[in-house]
């Protein structure tokens, strides 16, 4: 299955993932900036930015991103929600790019829940 052949439900789900990741990135940057110039949280925030960008890249060009702003002020929880959504659509035969996004988000969930990222 190619990107352009994704059905409407999958497209809607990935758009939701993109919104979750964007909001998670905002929160991560706020936390990183608040922690000062030596904060290692920059790495996590940059990673979430990268995942959000990849989610946008997975979507077909015509896809709309409008939708409700995700509720919550915890980047780790938003990442976990994004991971959950991706699990639902990453079934056998899913595009490899989508599977790659899922792997990236899963890694970020782990980063956000360990050490200084927690």
């Amino acid at each position, binding site marked *: 299955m190619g990107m352009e052949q994704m059905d409407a439900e999958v497209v809607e789900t990935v758009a939701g993932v993109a919104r979750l990741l964007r909001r998670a990135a905002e929160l991560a940057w706020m936390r990183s900036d608040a922690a000062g*110039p030596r*904060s290692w949280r920059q790495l996590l925030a*940059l990673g979430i930015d990268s995942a959000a*960008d990849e989610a946008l890249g997975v979507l077909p060009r015509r896809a709309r991103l409008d939708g409700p702003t995700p509720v919550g002020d915890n980047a780790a929880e938003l990442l976990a929600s994004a991971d959950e959504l991706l699990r639902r659509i990453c079934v056998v035969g899913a595009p490899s790019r989508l599977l790659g996004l899922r792997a990236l988000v899963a890694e970020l969930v782990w980063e956000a829940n360990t*050490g*200084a990222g927690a």
Partner: protein
Amino acid sequence: MPARDRHTIGELLADSDALARETLLDATPENAPAMVRSWNQLVASAVHLWAALASGPDSMSGSDPMERLRAVGQAIGRSVRAGHWPGHGPTDDHLSEISDNLSRARHLIERHDRPSHTANTDRHAHTPDIHGQVMHTLYVAAHGTAVALGAYVEELQHRLKVGTRRRQPMAERPTILEITEAQGMIARFGGFEQLAAAYMFGQPLRSGDPGQLRAAAPATRLETALAAWEVQAHRTLAAYPDSADLVWVARVQALIASTTRIVTEAAATTGHIDPDLLQRLAPTLEANQVAWSRLAKRWGELTSPASRTDPAVVAAASEVRAAIAATATNQNGWATPDQLASRVDLGNTVKTLHLSMIASVDIAHVARDTAADHPGLTATARIIGMRAQGEAEIAIEQGETRYGGVRWTTPRQISANEVIPLPEPARRGLINLTEDVIATTKQSVAAAAQLDPSGVTRSVRSGPEARRGRLVERRQITHPPGPWPKGPRR
């Protein structure tokens, strides 16, 4: 194809190096603007000659250490073409002649096939020297241009001082803007010179081609990722970037500043560098990180849901992030000094990161040019209303009269939150924030001058102190590095 050249490749290169030395000896203020205008052409000729040669003996397979220098040369050329100082005008005869020599050398090589592809083992043996000679010529010419620029700035400052004292009409005095822009150019040439020096004085530059990232050995991952990042940042900024691209550039640069701070601290703690260096460098790196972060936030305000980043810049940024994570972190955050020391050669890694700071001087200048010139910059009306008004009020307080009573958005635009072109005051805010980035980057580079790959203490500052330092260097550098035509050793 030009007419048959009576000179040999060696003669052309020797003549080029001699001409570069002459630029140093004859560096006068009036030459400086023309030298800047000629720079991109000179670098382009060197790049083409370099490409016509076989790979150097110490380079990774297929690597191209000239790529970073090309990115800086092209960025300077674009800046001049866009009308920034020194703007359009005559070019420099010396540098043009060097450029011509290098092009002729390339034609000779191409006519006789590449040196490594011939059966002439003698010429093959000299290929590394040709690389060294080309790099040395660029190094000396960059230094000569920086010296001429230093003299130019001094003269402008003197004329401004005298003009102010004698109350000359404003039109007859140099402007502060011209002095600032020429000082910025000194920093860019200083960076170029040090990147060339890194190749010549024993720290070969890694390939700047992002496509070669995956081929890099694990030990060089950080160095390779940083080199590729610099080139990609230049490429993306050169191609009408989206605001989102600027956010990426600024965020990655902030991360590099933080990483440099952490690794430098580890190197000082474990005795790899002088602890005094950390005392000088740490505050400037933190200020630099903060400046880049502020700039990222401001660019971030200008992004819209329709913003799309250049996939290549995201890929290069992701590799920098991954390389830093693998090198300098553990499960709890930044790695401890002992962990870092067990993973990498801290002395060399500090130098690598310092070189990246040097290169970021030019990236910051390109970001400033983008803020000033990019015709496609837009933002939503509400953001523009807020930012333009705020910046306009600051400018009015500083004596700017053009902004008084100007409305930057219409009620209709605000109501619909339309995406509209960025007005001048909002650009001015971006430029001011980028100036902070440039200033703090230069402070970091100056504070870490003892890590200079050439081993010669230098500074990117202008003014009498820096000028004296350069005059000492001028005497040092005019001595050939070895018996000609052997060229500089690596």
